[in-house]
């Protein structure tokens, strides 16, 4: 039986089902239903919900819980995520697993509470200081929130690094039916590195968790290990969805809820005989570059990236095709959502061009 569920509540319930027992955060629209839900839910499963005094405090509490080996998360939106960037950099530097949910709203600055995808750069290109990466997952519907939240916690533990799940205001606020995955026992991998206070007899090693590498040679060595890890992730973890791309001459590229609108455009223009398709990156980092090889999109003549921002992921699309195909962009920004008829006009213009 499907249940009707709001996106934000799905992020929260999915975290509980993925074995997350600790949440530290601070409310902000349009994601406040995440802490609202967890404030009630986590105590039911023996977990801890804590509303911190600020986002800065919250992310450092996440750091503490992660260092002690817990499955832990926080969630926020644009301005709050910006405040957390220092902590996220520290998590990356200290190789700590944690999940951070960002339900994007209109920025920069205070902006507004309308849906955008304007934090793509911040999520994918770093955000905090230093040479590091964060795995970024982008669900497009309420059902996928469940699969990707579970994946986020697993990847965080597997690679010992922060994972960001990037949604937009639409995904946070929408209610739709979802088949709840069966409850199952969660067995996170052992964390022998964690500072639990419980050290085996005869074990003389101390558990020191920090990101301080004062000697440059040591820091470089540490970072080289991180980069080896990042290369492995780029090799094995990219995910994307293809929709009618095999014979597509025009390839749309969108992530998150924007991809749902783009998909409806693909269907509409196909009715007019225009061969369009859609690539939906599910992992934004690692970016699914292999989806853009000549073998993957053999008929492609032009690519159109559609985003709820002024043009951010389009840069990664251009890097992926490396000049082989022209990449165009259509977006609305500031909290405005591109409408399907606007995108369709753009696709029709491209279709006349490539004919």
């Amino acid at each position: 039986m499907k249940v009707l569920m709001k996106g934000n509540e799905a992020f929260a319930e999915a975290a509980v089902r993925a074995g997350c027992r600790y949440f530290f955060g601070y409310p902000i629209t349009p994601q406040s239903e995440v802490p609202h839900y967890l404030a009630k839910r986590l105590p039911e499963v023996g977990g801890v919900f804590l509303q911190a005094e600020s986002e800065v405090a919250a992310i450092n509490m996440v750091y503490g819980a992660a260092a002690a080996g817990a499955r832990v998360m926080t969630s926020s939106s644009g301005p709050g995520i910006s405040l957390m960037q220092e902590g996220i950099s520290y998590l990356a530097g200290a190789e700590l697993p944690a999940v951070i949910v960002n339900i994007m709203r209109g920025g920069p600055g205070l902006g507004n509470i309308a849906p955008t995808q304007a934090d793509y750069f911040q999520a994918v290109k770093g955000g905090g200081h230093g040479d590091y990466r964060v795995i970024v997952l982008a669900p497009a519907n309420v059902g996928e929130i469940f699969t990707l939240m579970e994946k986020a916690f697993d990847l965080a533990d597997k690679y010992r690094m922060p994972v960001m799940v990037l949604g937009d205001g639409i995904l946070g606020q929408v209610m739709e039916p979802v088949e709840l995955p069966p409850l199952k026992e969660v067995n996170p991998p052992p964390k022998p590195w964690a500072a639990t206070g419980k050290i085996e007899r005869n074990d003389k090693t101390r558990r020191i968790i920090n990101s301080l590498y004062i000697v440059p040679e040591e820091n470089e060595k540490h970072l080289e290990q991180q980069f080896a890890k990042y290369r492995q992730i780029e090799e094995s973890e990219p995910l994307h969805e293809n929709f009618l791309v095999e014979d597509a001459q025009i390839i749309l590229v969108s992530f998150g809820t924007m991809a749902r609108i783009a998909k409806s455009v693909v269907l509409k223009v196909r009715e007019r005989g225009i061969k369009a398709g859609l690539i939906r990156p599910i992992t934004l980092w690692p970016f699914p570059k292999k989806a853009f090889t000549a073998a993957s999109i053999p008929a492609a003549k032009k690519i159109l990236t559609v985003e709820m921002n002024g043009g951010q992921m389009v840069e990664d699309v251009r890097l992926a095709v490396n000049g082989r195909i022209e990449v165009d962009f259509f977006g609305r920004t500031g909290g405005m959502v591109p409408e399907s008829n606007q995108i369709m006009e753009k696709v029709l213009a491209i279709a006349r061009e490539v004919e």
Partner: protein
Amino acid sequence: MAKVVKIALAGEGGQGVQSVAEIIAEAANEEGKEAIYIPNFGVEQRGGVSIAFIQISDEPIGSPKFEKGDIVVALSDRAVRRTRQYVGENTVFVYDSSIEGIEKDLPTNAKKILAIPALEVSKKELHPRVFNVLIMGAVLEATGVVTIEQAKKAIEKKLGYKFEKDPSLRELNYKAIDRGASLVREQ
């Protein structure tokens, strides 16, 4: 019902359009249909018009938002002006007949325009607090997206705890939904 039925409900904060939208989506889900409901959450927290977008279909639904509704309901003067953009040639536009000063603002391109005395009926015959449930009855009668019976079950699910304490509320809500449907039938 192969196509997606698109419904926009708009009113002032407190008129209960979001609650009604959730109940309709819940009822559709219980009937095994696909349903999507999203509030227009951008501005109403700052005193703007509250709009709920609902889509119901037998097939999975793509885009959570839509450009033109099959039925657009406006419950205040500002809501009438705000929702004109969602009205197209296939739209049934419903507004409350007690709203004043909007004669020039009514959409001119709608398939059909219905003025229903929902506010007056709820005040005189029922209770002002079930105004939104009466509107729900009208929407269901106009669209047929879910049965009145299923909607009553969804109300029971959402408000059952209140009905336990005061069973007369159940009767009041059920009456409101039936009366709302009759207002559209009489048109």
